[in-house]
Structure formats: C-alpha cells, structure tokens
C-alpha cells in the first residue's frame, strides 16, 4: 500500500450555492474512478473539511463523466456576501480537496504513475 496525494489522480472545480459549496472531482483517467469511489468517501471528505465546513457533506456519483460531485453544506461562513473569508465563494476548495492523502495498492500506484 502507498499514500499518495489525490491531485495525482484527479482535477477539480469548486464554487458556491448560497452558503453551501460544491466541488466537482474528476478522475484524470476513467481507470482511476474506482479508486476515487473507494477512497474519497463522504466521511473522509467531511473530516478533511472539518475546519471549513460546518454542515453535512453529500457525495454524488457521475460514472459516465468519471466524476463525483461533493456538496458541502454551510461551508462558507454564511455565503458570498456575508462571509469574512478571503475565499468568499469557495473557489479554491477544489484544490483543498486535492490535498487529501489516499491509500492505493502497489498495482494502482503503477497505474497512476503511468
């Protein structure tokens, strides 16, 4: 087993919906989709964003796009016009998710490293 950073396997984009944020997480290759599905669980994302997100996290699957949508409730200190955060609309939360360390098998590691 090996620990690697999520950004090796995926890219992402994030934004706001009122006081919630969403992060679209996209596998760099369709073959990585299952690794993301296993590793980037709702629970792990909620823990990862503990300091930022005050509400629940939901995960939605979009296998045809090799992607997931994460919905983070109350993750913007009240939303775009209310918040005191510099990232008022969660535009950098995409990268925050990609900081996550995930566990992959040696075989998967080879796949990722191409």
């Amino acid at each position, binding site marked *: 087993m090996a620990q690697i950073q999520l950004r090796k396997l995926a*890219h*992402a*984009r994030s*934004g*706001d*919906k*009122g*006081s*919630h944020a*969403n992060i*679209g997480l*996209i596998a*760099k290759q369709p073959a990585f989709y299952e690794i993301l599905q296993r590793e980037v669980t709702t629970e792990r994302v909620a823990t*990862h964003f*503990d*300091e*930022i997100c005050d509400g629940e996290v*939901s995960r*939605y*699957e*979009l*296998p*045809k*796009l*090799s*992607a997931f*949508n994460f*919905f983070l*409730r*109350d993750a913007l*200190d*009240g*939303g*775009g*016009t*209310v918040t*005191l*955060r*510099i*990232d008022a609309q969660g*535009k*950098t*939360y*995409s*990268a*925050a998710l*990609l*900081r996550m360390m995930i566990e992959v098998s040696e075989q998967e590691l080879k796949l990722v490293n191409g």
Partner: protein
Amino acid sequence: MKTIRIGNGQAFWGDSALAPLLQVRHGELDYLMLDYLAEVTMSIMQKMRARDPEQGYARDFVPLMENLLPEILDRGVKVVANAGGVNPLACARAVMEVAEKLGLADRVKVGVVSGDDIMGNVDHILEAGERLANMETNAPLTDVRDQLASANAYFGAFPIAEALAQGADIVITGRCTDASLAVGPLIHEFGWQPDDWDLLSAATIAGHVIECGAQTTGGNCMADWEQVEDMAHIGYPIAEFSEDGSFVVTKPEQMGGRVNVASVTEQLLYEIGDPNEYKTADVICDFTTIELEQIGPNRVRVSQIKGKPAPDYFKVSMSYAGGYKTTGTLVYGWPDAVKKAQAADRIVRKRLDDLNLNFDTIHTEILGANACHGSALSGPPDEDIAEVQLRIGVRGSDKKSIRRFTHEIAPLVCNGPPNVTGYFGGRSRVEEVIAYWPALMDKQYAEPLVTLFGE
C-alpha cells in the same frame, strides 16, 4: 440538420469588456448570450437602485451595446442578456437612447422580460399561505421580513423565446436562470413545447456549460492549466446546438484557449447540487447520463441528455440587511512573518476584549499561510516566508462596534510587532451585509411580462 450557434461573451458583471466584441466578430454566431448576474450582484444592484431609481442594472452593458450595435445588426446576431438586474426597463431605455444616438433606433427592437421582482407582493404572498422559507435553514421569511431588501423569482426561458418571437434583436431580462439566456433562443428557433423535457434539459445544460465564459475554454481550469494556449487571447465558448438535442462545445478558431473533455467536465460540475436533479423553472436536468466526446480540435460533443418535468414552483432569490462587517489588513515581513502576524492578532483581540465590543464573529486569516484552506489543511507555514498579510474580519449587528474595530489596526504599525507595512489605505470601510435568502414559491405568484421597445 439545423444547428444554432450561441456564444457566451460575459460570465459576470466585470468580465472582459472585449470578449463580447471578439465573440461577435469571430464566433459566426446566431446568438450572443451575456450573463451579468451572480447572486452577489443582485444585492449590489439593489443598493444602486435605492440611491437612484434609474439605476440597478449592469451599467457596462450600455456602452457595450454602443460598440456592438452596428456589428450585430450587420451580422444578424441577436443578443440575450440578463443585464437588466433589478431594473430591466431602465436598462432597455438606456439601450434605446444609445440606438437613437447611433441613428439605429429604427432598425433595433429591444425586448424586456420583467415581472420577476415580487418585492411589492411579498406580504400578499405570505398572507396567501406561502412561507417563503429559507431553503438552507427552513426558517420562515417572517424572521427577516422587516430587513428584506429585494425579492426576485428565477424565471425560465419561455418569456425570452416570446420576446424573440415578437421580433426582438436584443432581449434584456431581470432575474432568470442563467441557462435560460441560451434556452430561450433555442425554444424560439426549434419551436419546442414546454413538455419537450429532454430537449429543454439538453438546452439548459448547454447554457450551463457556456454561461461562465472562458471557464469552459481553459480558464480557471485545474487540468493542465499550464498547457492552455495563448490565455491572453482566450476565446469564449460557443454551443453549436443540433435539433436532435446534442450539442458541440467549441470556441472561435482564431483565438486562444482550449476546449477538451477535461475543461468541459469541470464546467459541467460547476456550482451544481444533486446532479440527478438540477432544477430550473422549465425542466429538471439529469447530469448523470451525459456523454462527452472529443470530436475534433477544440470541439467536444455533449449528448445523451435526459430531462424530467419541471417543478411547479419558482426559485426565489431574496436579499436582506444582515448587519455589518469589515476586514482590517496589515503586512508583516520576513523574518518570522507568521509569528508576528499571530502576535498582532492576539494583541488586537485582547484590545477588543478590553473595549467590550459586540461582534457575532471575529475571523483571522494569514494570507500566505492559511487564508484559503485553513490551518489544518495548509500545513505548517514556511518559516522563511517573505511576508504575509494579516486579515482580521469582524461581523455583527452593532455598527458602532464594527466601526470602532477599524480604529484598532493602524496603531499596530507603531505599537505592535516589527517589520509591518501595507496600511496605506486608511481605516477599512464598514460594509452593510446584504444576506441571501433563497426560497421556493408556487408559480402562480409571479407572471413574466414581455415588453417590446422600438416598434
């Protein structure tokens, strides 16, 4: 097979002033779609109209039309823009003035979609039994009724199609779902009915993909961003929509940027909730069946889109006065920049304590160390960092406390930790917080109104 080319030339109020011009010139468009309205924008426009009843729309749209008008008339490109903000009729009057100034008034028809502003009817709607509860907290609107500043229904695309059917060359709307700016022309061109769910869903997703401008063509894209070509001259996106309900995302060939599956996927997922049920006034879209295919350089085909019957309510976007806030900043330089900023933060908080002020929140960020992702995710800061910016924000309902806070930053220059600078803007401005109140409302309570100018 008939196709219609819709290009986006503006993703928000403040986006590139040249983009619409270049899109018209190089995009071979049938329609130019311009999106000016973020949720944040509506509250800004509200403040503008409060100061001047002839304002409250995206002012930049008027000089833009002055530049574009001859060219769009010559090329037969129609414009659909939500530039109307909270005052679409005033916006249309200003555009007609420009047309007259250019001697083009007899060649231009401007259609306006209004009626989304339900501010005057809120009490009636509440009395009729709608709670207008906050979608996020489920609190009833009565909690903030007295502070309410604006209330607008998110209309769909049919009123836009109606304006085009009446012969409008330019359609100006107030609040409508952003994607409607693309869906309206397609309804008009293809003659769709309100229950063409799959087609309406496909058109909505086409609108969603292009509404954020260059975010689809390589801008703000994490996938291989360094490989995006000539970002300085990035082309804005075009949806080439076929009558079968598929569409191709592309951009003007002559311009920079990159349209590939990665950038289109990032944008598909931008600012959505449950991808099985993306709701607009016209349809419920399903993102999970979408298929993407790179069919040529900078051409991505989007197909297999399904839709479900529209909800029987409008989403309503309301804003209300929610107190005050301000953020004070200082820059601390090497060495030990983070330590100094932290010490300064502790000093300010102690002094605020002594003053017995009243805040709902005090929030500190150290830009360079933990501002975007918080301390836990950002990891230990670089001890040798060149400098950081200390940002202390306060929010609350007591304006005096917020104002008093603004006096506590500059003194640190002489009476706090050393190597401090970046304080030349003076005391930070106390801002009124305009908070956002999203709700649902039965469709009977708002009626789109189409008006034609220039007949």
